[in-house]
């Protein structure tokens, strides 16, 4: 570095001589022109434009000149450096262009090669469809309630107004659990998710707005439409001033959330011991919207050309059920529904056979991925 108390004779600073500056510049430009690759150019850049390049070093000497000579020398060196820099930039562009057109082409691969190295998993569509069904109600402010699968008969039947000798009690083909000594245990595999109604009423503060998805069991042999193990989504509302109209509203919201808008629903009177009045609920077939009814040329597989699809059962909670759960029937009323998860999956996603849903074939489940 130069110090102010040192004085140099400007003529002695040969590196700032015009000829010398021109020589350094020409040398640099020649080297740039001769760089054959981006890597060469990088070295050339270091040698001729780097901190320790001749032009950079010369630039540092300018300060040693007499003030009158400084401007001249500065202009000279600065001009040379600019020229070198521009040449570098231009050469860089040329070489990059060259690389793009040649090297990148040479490096091309077959991007259609498979890369299935990581195995693909999936969740069971019954799991995901049940979640989706529940989520529609969670979105309305409902909570998800639960109960055991091996259930006390009192919860599964008695509290739900299935009287001991009523034919309804035998209508549901029940798996009974043996006691330790081989006698009656008072336990069953729950035949429906309805015992969760009682559990919700006993375990929660009123009002209650819950859905309960879960496994249920009946002694049906596995065939195309039956399985001894299946899934339901129970719904229960107990509040003041609750009517069938609210039940319809909830069912309509479910149908819209699950199958799309504009589908009509239909209630048909029916019978369940734990609801009174009771109804079966149907929705308009979302495939043919009824167009297949009476038109043999356009049969509909989804609804068997009935125009309607059965969704499940529902009704006003029988006040006897509320009583058994300790709810004041003078003040509160409610409704409940039970929707079939398998049925929903079959309709919404075209599953033809119950076997597919229970066998665990990876091809079936994989088709549905992570969410449904």
């Amino acid at each position, binding site marked *: 570095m130069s110090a102010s108390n040192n004085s140099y004779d400007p003529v002695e600073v040969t590196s700032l001589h015009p000829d010398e500056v021109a020589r350094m510049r020409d040398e640099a430009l020649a080297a740039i022109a001769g760089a054959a690759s981006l890597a060469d150019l990088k070295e050339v850049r270091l040698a001729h434009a780097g901190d320790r390049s001749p032009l950079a070093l010369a630039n540092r000497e300018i300060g040693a000149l007499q003030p009158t000579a400084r401007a001249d020398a500065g202009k000279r060196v600065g001009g040379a450096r600019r020229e070198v820099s521009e040449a570098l930039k231009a050469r860089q562009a040329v070489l990059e262009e060259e690389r793009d057109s040649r090297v990148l082409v040479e490096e091309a691969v077959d991007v259609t090669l498979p890369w299935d190295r990581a195995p693909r998993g999936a969740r069971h569509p019954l799991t995901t469809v049940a979640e989706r069904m529940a989520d529609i109600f969670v979105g309305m402010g409902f909570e998800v309630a639960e109960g055991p*699968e091996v259930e006390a008969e009192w919860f599964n039947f008695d509290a739900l107004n299935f009287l001991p000798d009523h034919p309804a009690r035998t209508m549901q083909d029940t798996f009974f659990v043996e006691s330790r000594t081989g006698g009656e245990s008072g336990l069953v595999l729950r035949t429906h998710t309805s015992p969760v109604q009682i559990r919700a009423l006993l375990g929660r503060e009123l009002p209650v707005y819950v859905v309960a998805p879960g496994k249920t069991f009946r002694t049906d042999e596995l065939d195309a439409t039956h399985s001894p193990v299946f899934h339901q989504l129970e719904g229960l509302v107990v509040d003041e001033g609750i009517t069938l109209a609210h039940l319809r509203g909830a069912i309509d919201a479910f149908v819209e959330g699950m199958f799309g808008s504009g589908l009509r629903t239909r209630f048909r*009177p029916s019978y369940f011991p734990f609801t009174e009045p009771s109804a079966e609920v149907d929705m308009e077939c979302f495939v043919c919207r009824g167009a297949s009814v009476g038109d043999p040329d356009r049969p509909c597989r989804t609804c068997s050309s009935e125009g309607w699809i059965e969704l499940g059962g529902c009704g006003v909670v029988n006040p006897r059920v509320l009583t058994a759960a300790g709810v004041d029937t003078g003040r509160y009323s409610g409704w409940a529904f039970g929707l079939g998860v398998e049925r929903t999956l079959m309709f919404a996603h075209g599953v033809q056979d119950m076997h597919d849903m229970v066998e665990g074939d990876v091809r079936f489940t994989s088709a549905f991925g992570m969410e449904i």
Partner: protein
Amino acid sequence: MRVPVSWLREYVDLPADVTARDLAAKLIAAGLEVETVDEVGADITGPIVIGRVTAIEELTGFKKPIRYCRVDVGAANDSGDPQYIVCGARNFTEGDLVVTALPGAQLPGGFAISARTTYGKVSEGMICSAAELNLWDDHTGIIVLPEGFAEPGADAYGLLGLREDVLDIAVTPDRGYALSMRGVAREAAAVYGAAFRDPADVPTASQASGGGYPASVADPAICSRYVLRTVTGFDPEAATPLWMKRRLALTGVRSISLAVDVTNYVMMELGQPLHAWDRARLRGPIEVRLARKDEQLETLDHVKRTLNPDDILITDESGPINIAGVMGGLATEISATSTDVVIEAAHFTDTHIARASRRHQLSSESSRRFERGVDSALQLAAATRAVRLLAELGGAEVDPGYTDIGHGVAREPIPMAADHPGRVAGVDYPRDRVVARLREVGCTVVDDEAADSLLVTPPSWRPDLTDRNDLAEEVIRYEGYENIPAIAPRAPAGRGLTDGQRLRRTVGRSLAGAGFVEVLSYPFLGRRDFDKLQLAADDGRRSALKLVNPLNDDEPLLRTTLLPGLLKTLVRNVGRGFGDVALFEMGLVYLPGADAPEKAPILRVDRGPAPEELASVEAAIPHQPRRVGAVLAGDREPAGWWGPGRAAVWADAIEAAREVGRAAGVEMTVKADQRAPWHPGRCAALYVSVGGVTRLVGHAGELHPRVVQEYGLPARTVAMEVELDAIEAARTTARAPEISAYPVATQDVALVIDASIPVSEVEEALRAGAGPLLESVRLFDVYTGEQVGEGRRSLAYSLRFRAPDRTLKAEEIATARDAAVAAAGERTGAVLRG
């Protein structure tokens, strides 16, 4: 209940243009589950007419005797000439009226009739049997019509009712009344607003009861009404008329004999089960009573049954003769020689009949009606209807005297606010509509406007109507469910899913993201599964709940582990050509409690349970924790153009378990263990810390080769099973770490150590020794070989150090590293590799 529409129309003035399908739709809307509209005879077409056999030529020389008949079919064949028809039946003679299918006719099953040569003759049609026309089940020969039935040439369709629409109704348990033409007709009349003629409106008797067959009822609580009527001089040979046979066939009842057919016909018509005895076989007065211990009866189905003290019996001096309302005894059965007949019409208590039917596994047309509730005011009318039919059709004489015990079931009026149905439905029903609808049902309604309430007495045929909501349903269904508006429910703000519910979803997604496919297998197992899993005789998992009535006798147990279901599903997939499988299942296992009570009590239902009552039920319910299981076989990563694949190994099973832990944000620690069904040298026990207490949550590793063999699994199949509930309990709230921006210092150390020391211990020691500056430890190489010596291995660790507040100095790093190595040496005997 099968309901022929033409029969129904006898009792209700339906508009003529109402089709069976219209009627079905209306009844469905009103609550009768019409499952199908059966168009009986729709497959019969073409000329089918009445014919008279005018000559019979017996053809011989064939395997069986054949007749060549000349049949007068009037003008039905256009020519007016007789038809010549070959017939194999022999139950007719010259002059008989028969049913003739002419060429061009089509019979059920696509059977086309044409003129054809058979047995050396041209046969111009067919003389039909009842079975060939699907009229009723009779293979004894052709139908011979009674003289005067019709003229030859008359069209047979209307005369025989060849075509009939039949509604098949699945009657729900509350609608016992709909198990009769009477009940369905009443519904049809209500939905169409049409006039109803009650078939039970029969003039019953010209005198008060008395002088009938002697009988007594031990207890009105088992039989509220008991009616006996008798006939004498009945012709046991008298045939059941065709119309009755046809109607019974359409309702699904087989014709047996006139006396039995009449009881069935009246049951279908009115809904009252009847029983007919041969009076000559009864011994002395009848008593209706409960069975005594060890009494026996051989029933009509030839089964000798031991009776239960809860069975209602009909007895005479010989002992039990009927299980009331369920099935008659064999000894008093009406027979082909019975001329004096006793008809019983009773109202038995529904619960007794339901229990008896279940106990004896006898579900009859009679028991189905009694257990759903029979009209308790119908008995005299039904018995009278039956004896009149026996007189009319069987030439019998009706005895004027009869027995009539009891008064049926008295109905108490039900008070109901007039606006109650409206408040249930969410619809404003005018008061007078409510009253009118209830009257249509058959209720007596007293409108007490002062009290703003209705006093509603349900009719005797509706025992199901007991509560005001039952009455509300009647109003709402007649007013139309379709008229209930839809109003969105207004739930208070919910709290969304619980942590546990969200965790399950996260676990499912994590495992699926890691390449596992979810299965939902049945929870049924057999003892054989425990043997296959190599469980020791005293293994707790063998203690499983047992089903009384399993679908498959080999699998009566409820699972105590998820593995058998997963393994069977794995085998199924391998069998279908998928050798590289990774499966998982999330579900409950059922663990019987060792000190659970023998039986879950049945609590009362007339009020909510007290806490201790509820606790007594809950104590009997087995523990049902949620588990996650996974199995892997074949390649975890497939071979491809990039190179070889990687087989699934024991570590993949442990990793699957860790994946579950990670989904919950819970760190799992691993220790070597020995537990079936795993390979004793490749089995890991998995632990979590719950509130500072270490808790075992499951196992993972390679399966024992015997298990692999027993289940037919691919070699070296690996599996894990962990308890999700326990992992959930180990969750803690995640705290944000302090992120230091100062440079990291990495130190690699190689330690030589006895090969039997688990690396987890070494790592633990390194961590403890390195102190707070240690950011992470990673084992990046394991080496065994000559250089480290027999029974020893070299573990290469990468230690990363960083300080929160400064750049570490070289000497600090060296000190920490040396301390880590020293701790490893102290605790595990590891020495730094030179």
